[in-house]
């Protein structure tokens, strides 16, 4: 069956999508919490103030969360899903935990979606953790990319966590992903 086409999230998505606590997968201040943040940038280098980022991730042990509660967090359960609208400067941030590898030897990453006014369909990408260069070197997606393209998928370590900027266009355009359908 043909999939329904996407359409832009438009300028008024704040009415329906972001929610209180959406960007706090764990409470800030928890000892093992990290900050994952970045800026969404357009082709002229300006921040995109009307964009939305979602992350979906494994927990630190690499387990995929199968627990509801992302929309109304109970303060204890890690659900692996978060959503953040950008601020006036195009910045977003999450308080979360570092994902572990879902299979031994695989490089851990955050699955990321991006939506914005002016962007006619959502985009998929991955924010890989900066550690474990051996696992990244063995990753088929990363290995197939030119080094400067590969770099756009790797979060930058910082004192309190990770930075992951998303360039919609331009010299440092982020690598966005398409997923072929499995032929069974």
């Amino acid at each position, binding site marked *: 069956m043909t999939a329904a086409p996407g359409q832009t999230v438009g300028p008024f998505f704040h009415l329906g999508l972001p929610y209180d606590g959406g960007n706090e997968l764990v409470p800030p201040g928890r000892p093992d919490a990290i900050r994952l943040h970045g800026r969404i940038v357009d082709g002229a280098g300006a921040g995109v103030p009307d964009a939305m980022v979602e992350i979906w991730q494994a927990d630190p042990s690499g387990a995929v969360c199968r627990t509801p509660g992302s929309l109304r967090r109970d303060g204890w359960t890690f659900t692996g899903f978060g959503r953040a609208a950008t601020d006036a400067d195009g910045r977003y941030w999450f308080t979360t935990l570092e*994902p572990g590898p879902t299979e031994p030897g695989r490089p851990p990453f955050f699955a990321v979606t991006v939506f914005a006014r002016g962007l006619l369909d959502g985009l998929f990408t991955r924010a890989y953790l900066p550690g474990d260069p051996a696992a990244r070197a063995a990753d088929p997606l990363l290995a197939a990319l030119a080094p400067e393209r590969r770099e756009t998928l790797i979060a930058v370590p910082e004192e309190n966590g990770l930075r992951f900027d998303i360039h919609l266009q331009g010299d440092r355009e982020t690598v966005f992903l398409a997923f072929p359908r499995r032929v069974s």
Partner: protein
Amino acid sequence: MTTLPTQAAISDEIEELRFTSGPQPRLDYPPYRSSRLRHPTRAPEVADPEGVELWAPCFGHADVDDTEADLTMRHPGEPIGERVVVTGRVLDGEGRPVAHQLVEVWQANAAGRYRHQRDRHPAPLDPNFTGAGRCLTGADGSYRFVTIKPGPYPWRNHLNAWRPAHIHFSLFGTDFTQRLVTQMYFPGDPLFGLDPIYQSITDPKAREMLVATYDHDLTAPEFSLGYRWDIVLTGGHRTPLDTEETP
């Protein structure tokens, strides 16, 4: 001050780009002016989904209250406008129902005004209508919202630009690669041909997938009109066997 292009100029651009993409919208679509600096210029990298991408976030009754599916009951009074039921099924690319999954909607009121600080359209806000709702699909993938038919509204893409009436939909599938945000339209809208967002899907058959069908059997006597809209997501990547397993 920049002079806005006319509808005729935008319509010419739309005409030139007909049938230039597959079933998905063109991201690089100049008639939608805001897309100019916001579309990736490189083709996406093809990746094999893995790990979390093979699973979708879980939502449950802890997340969504049953009352959130009725956008007409969120305030003490009745909202103004044409009361409608919008219902259908969320399906994956193989036609299987996407069960117990989150559907989110948001929309303008009957006058074409969003309850949003950035909406400056001088049409009235309705104190009895917010315009946001959520529900979980049933075991058969079905969803159902009760709402008010949104009005068309003007925007500043070009001179005399008006969006056809639409409801924004946000959908999850059984794996994260199926994530979709789109818009549902109402049949027979005279603004379809003029709207660069709708026309960014340059294949007319694909565009029509976003148009609901009026269904008189869904219309409730003396109460509301009924529209049906099924939403097909991309194919899931897990095999049925995977689905039985816990990760």
